[in-house]
């Protein structure tokens, strides 16, 4: 549905179930352990590229309520797609390298969130950024495990709809 990338629902859904190690988020929305924390999750990209994409994903759609595993699940979708898509793998690897270079060495090493966002802003027209961003539209927001954290209840027909479950329960108007 997104103009810049073909939505792969399967990829997005597959990523939901990916086994992920837990990392934490520190001050300024910075992902901890960015050097090696995702080594066990990255299958096709190298660990640093994967970790940088996780940081970049959080900076693109920052949500305090979401643990890093949700961003990593989205990046896993790209990582898996890169297995048979050499052009994608190159785009992601080169894109991260370019981002690190623009950051003066390490994007994830920039501790000021506003400075990281400024680096992304400078490249938002690039195919690489749009690939990562477009992937998140489904990879992040179509993750059923994340829905309750946003107050979205998902399927309702199997529960009899909302006719007896609050379709008109608003009480503050």
């Amino acid at each position: 549905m997104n103009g810049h990338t073909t939505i792969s629902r399967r990829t997005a859904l597959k990523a939901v179930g990916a086994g992920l190690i837990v990392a934490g988020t520190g001050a300024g929305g910075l992902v901890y352990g960015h050097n090696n924390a995702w080594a066990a999750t990255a299958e096709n990209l190298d660990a640093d590229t994967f970790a940088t994409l996780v940081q970049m994903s959080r900076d693109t759609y920052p949500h305090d309520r979401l643990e890093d595993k949700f961003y990593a699940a989205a990046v896993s979708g790209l990582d898996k797609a890169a297995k048979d898509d050499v052009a994608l793998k190159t785009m992601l690897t080169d894109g991260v390298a370019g981002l690190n270079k623009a950051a003066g060495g390490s994007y994830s090493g920039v501790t000021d969130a506003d400075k990281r966002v400024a680096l992304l802003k400078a490249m938002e027209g690039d195919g690489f950024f749009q690939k990562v961003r477009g992937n998140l539209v489904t990879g992040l927001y179509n993750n059923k495990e994340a829905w309750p954290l946003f107050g979205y209840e998902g399927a309702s027909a199997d529960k009899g709809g909302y006719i007896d479950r609050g379709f008109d329960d608003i009480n503050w108007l």
Partner: protein
Amino acid sequence: MATFDMNDDSVVVVVGSGAGGGTLGAELAIKGVKTVILEAGGRHETEDFQNDEWGSFGQISWLDKRTTSGSWRVAKDFAGLPAWIVKAVGGSTTHWAGASLRFQEHEWKAKTTYGDVAGANLLDWPIDMAEMDQWYAKAEDRMGVTRTNGIPGLPGNNNYKVLEAGAKKLGYKEVHTGRMAINSEPRDDRAACLQIGFCFQGCKSGAKWSTLVAEIPKGEATGNLEVRPNAQVLKIEHDDTGKVTGVLYADKDGKQHLQKARVVCVAGNSIESPRLLLNSASSKYPDGLANSSGMVGKNYMRHMTGSVYAVFDKPVHMYRGTTMAGIIQDESRHDPSRGFVGGYEMETLSLGLPFMAAFLDPGGWGKDFSWWMDNYENTAGMWLVGEDMPQEKNAISLHATEKDQHGLPVPNVHFDDHDNDIKMRDHAFGQGEAVYKAAGAVKTFRTPPYPSTHNLGTNRMSAEAKDGVVNKHGQSHDISNLFVSDGSQFTTGAAENPTLTIVALALRQADFIAGEMSKGNL
């Protein structure tokens, strides 16, 4: 269910099974006419539908290759997806929200009422409200439209209650839960609405009218209707006299078949219908079938649309219950003092979290975007839909180089907003925001148009053959046994959601075709 032979040239062939084709095919069968509906998509029944936005999108959407051009934002945000419509038995009636509004009297006479609007290719319809009243009444009864025929309105959900509260504070008067083709009580062997939500994803209770659940089964029960799914029509054939003789279609394996026909009715929605006529060009009809006017594919309309979303400081849960749960009609009047001709409707609309991410602000990112997603639970939403101006340059055309899976040129959809469309949208955005601010909104957002759901006008109806493609019966001016039966025959778009009018025209057309057949004229 009947099955007809490929060489049976006594059948009426209907291309498409949506609001136009599904209704027409069923009604012809009920009248005793042998009919074959060829549907490009598969057949997914009520139990197959998914309460899952992307899952359903992959299941029923028309995703064949299309291209876009023009200055409309859809061409930038969704370059390969100009329209959000359906490829499945039931067509876009599986996806529609159910709003069933009659045109207003003046909307049948847009040229007379609005006068000359620079750049607009306005025309009066060759039919009017007096003619259509009886067909609207029949359609409303068939579809079980609430607030007609003694059918009560649906109960208002949370999203509606927010809209209503703001509307009343602003002084709007025509505010209610809509005229909806969704059962508010059991009717026509279908249950009452369970407020499931996911109306766009195919109704899982059967409460929402669609040709899939309400018309086609009735047609099939007569023994006069065969619905052939996974049958993509590629070309309409004709003989030396110029009459159409049948259609060439590809089955699910890509194998081609020729179904002969006595009459062909095209109802593939306003992108595929003109594309089929253009792709059927021959030495006799080098510009495509029924195109002596040059209007096939032209005057593409998609309604002036936009959405307003608003965040409140307490929960709304807009997604609970019917997607289009209520309406404000006060702005649907023609009142040029607002700075534009025609009017617009304001209708609640909700998206689930996945589609909010895709549509709220396509391409948007960063903290501001995330704020909206963080406040999803406290969000209310409305859709703005109004009359847009027909422009000859807005058109479906055959792509010069891109081909589909059958080797045929893909359609390009070109659209530029008319100045009137822009002025109307700005006004509608302002009023939509005012409604929510009156209800206490913390923040409001102007969401740009989604890919087109109301595709209209590309084989338009006209009194004179030089101005349009079909006459007042949807019969092509050029070829007497070739009809257009979908929204592409709309002369102008009016402010209202088009399905009720498409159904009313299809019922009327069935009456005409059956009558002409019995008189020996077809």
